[in-house]
């Protein structure tokens, strides 16, 4: 007999206000339907009424776990529309800050994910303490704790403060040690392994078919990373390789993210070592910006959650239309497909491993 149950929109494990309507037969999921829209506020429409550089705060609130990544994607779109070159040093600093943001985002994901699969608030407390150390670095570089708004056309709002390199090195050493500790702790836990291994399997073909991106795609063994395939800034000069796992289950996605933290640490170190001297400041907001030259631009970026594509039709002073391909929206669409046939308790292991941010899904 098939029973229909409702989960959410307020549920401690849905990471926001996701509502799931699930048909279950005994303890097996027959059909899962995500209902979204509880956070919809029409960002794309609001942006059309704002001048170009009034919009970054709105962009940051899309993905509030990794705000700077979205901010940067938007500013890069505007830069492309205006045909502005980014200064050399600003490119290096942006790369480094984006990777720091990726580390912070993955650490938050790890804490909440471990919460969902039974490591009740132990790993959460640890990762939040470590995330805070990384956030403090970002605060130092940009002046804010959560919503940075530090990208300007052609550069940044400010250069790195003196002594930043040494402190960043210290933090990177610390995080590297801690990541190893998390892995040792979690993978020694039979509970964690039972709930992650072989759950929510998405094979290579299905992953490509569903259009998922980011760590979810790389967990299914597809070698696609925007930083490598459609490179931007100084990623081609830095030494890193996309992390792949071929299993396609929740554990593979977890492992990919853990390896990505390590890669990001390496990228930050490389970027700090090779950073050129010079000017990194962008245009102040108060000046009238150069009006947009290119009518239609699109920029794709690798966010911590997957590929974001910003497509903009540009008017001289404000966007005529901005369309955002949100990574988590597409990843959420994969959820009903891969959770067919799993147990009811595994729904949250799957939703956690997809790393959903509802602000990004609903826009």
């Amino acid at each position, binding site marked *: 007999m098939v029973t229909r149950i409702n989960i959410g929109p307020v549920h401690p494990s849905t990471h*926001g206000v996701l509502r799931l309507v699930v048909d279950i037969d005994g303890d097996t999921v027959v059909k899962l339907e995500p209902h979204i829209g509880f*956070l*919809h506020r029409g960002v794309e*429409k609001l942006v059309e009424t704002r001048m170009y550089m009034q919009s970054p705060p709105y962009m940051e609130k899309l993905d*509030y776990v990794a705000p700077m990544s979205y901010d940067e994607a938007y500013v890069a779109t505007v830069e492309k529309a205006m045909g502005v070159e980014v200064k050399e040093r600003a490119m290096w600093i942006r790369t480094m800050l984006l990777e720091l943001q990726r580390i912070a985002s993955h650490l938050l994901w790890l804490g909440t994910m471990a919460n969902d699969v039974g490591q009740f608030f132990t790993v959460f*407390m640890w990762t*939040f*303490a470590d995330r*805070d150390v990384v956030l403090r670095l970002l605060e130092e570089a940009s002046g804010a*704790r959560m919503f940075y708004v530090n990208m300007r056309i052609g550069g940044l709002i400010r250069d790195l403060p003196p002594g930043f390199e040494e402190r960043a090195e210290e933090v990177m050493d610390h995080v590297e040690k801690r990541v190893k500790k998390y892995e040792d702790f979690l993978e020694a836990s039979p509970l964690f392994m039972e709930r992650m291994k072989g759950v929510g399997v998405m094979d290579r073909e299905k992953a490509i078919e569903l259009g998922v991106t980011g760590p979810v795609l790389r967990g299914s063994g597809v070698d696609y990373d925007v930083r490598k395939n459609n490179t931007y800034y100084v990623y081609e000069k830095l030494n890193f390789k996309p992390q792949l796992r071929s299993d396609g289950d929740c554990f593979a996605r977890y492992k990919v993210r853990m390896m990505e933290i390590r890669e990001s640490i390496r990228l930050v170190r490389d970027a700090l070592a090779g950073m050129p001297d010079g000017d990194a400041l962008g245009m102040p907001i108060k000046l009238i910006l150069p009006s947009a030259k290119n009518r239609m631009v699109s920029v794709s970026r690798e966010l911590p959650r997957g590929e974001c594509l910003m497509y903009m039709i540009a008017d001289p002073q404000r966007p005529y239309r901005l369309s955002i391909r949100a990574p988590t929206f597409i990843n959420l669409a994969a959820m009903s497909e891969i959770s067919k046939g799993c147990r009811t308790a595994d729904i949250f292991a799957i939703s956690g491993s997809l790393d959903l941010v509802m602000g990004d899904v609903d826009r």
Partner: protein
Amino acid sequence: METPPYDKERFLNAEKEMSALVRASMSKYETKPNVMFAKLSEVSKALSKGLVEWSRVRSLWPLQFGLSCCAMELMDFGSARIDAERRGYLFFRATPRQADVMVVAGWVTKSMVPEIKRLYEQMLKPRYIIAYGECATCGGPWWESYNIVKGIDQVLPVDVYVVGCPPKPENLYAGFMKLQKKIGGEIED
């Protein structure tokens, strides 16, 4: 005293018999039992009034309920750095029936209002609301959006506002301290 043998009728009438026994034993005393119990309850009420208030102020259980951005800072508030439990802002409860305080963290959309209302109705009285962040206070940057309620105070009574976008977890800590003072009667509305 010898226990009497089991008797079904007597078993069924046990309550009557017990009250008869109590009445008989109480007849020795000068004050009647009703009066005595009334006085006792008065004394305990007077004693417990302060006690209840004291314990209510010092054990506020927030509801685990995050809407958007500010929920990240709310999670940080619950983590080890702030260590909110030392002042009695205890562990986040997953069900509204066990919670005293609802921290509305994030923008309130029109589709979310019925859900928030239902959560609020499920909480036991006395219940408190903290509006955390710019969006929950007044709509914030989404003021012009077509799907946003301009502050949670348009639908539910708010006790403490914490402003900022987003406020730091320390600010929420200060907000909780203010709520404590309000419950304790130190500050008025």
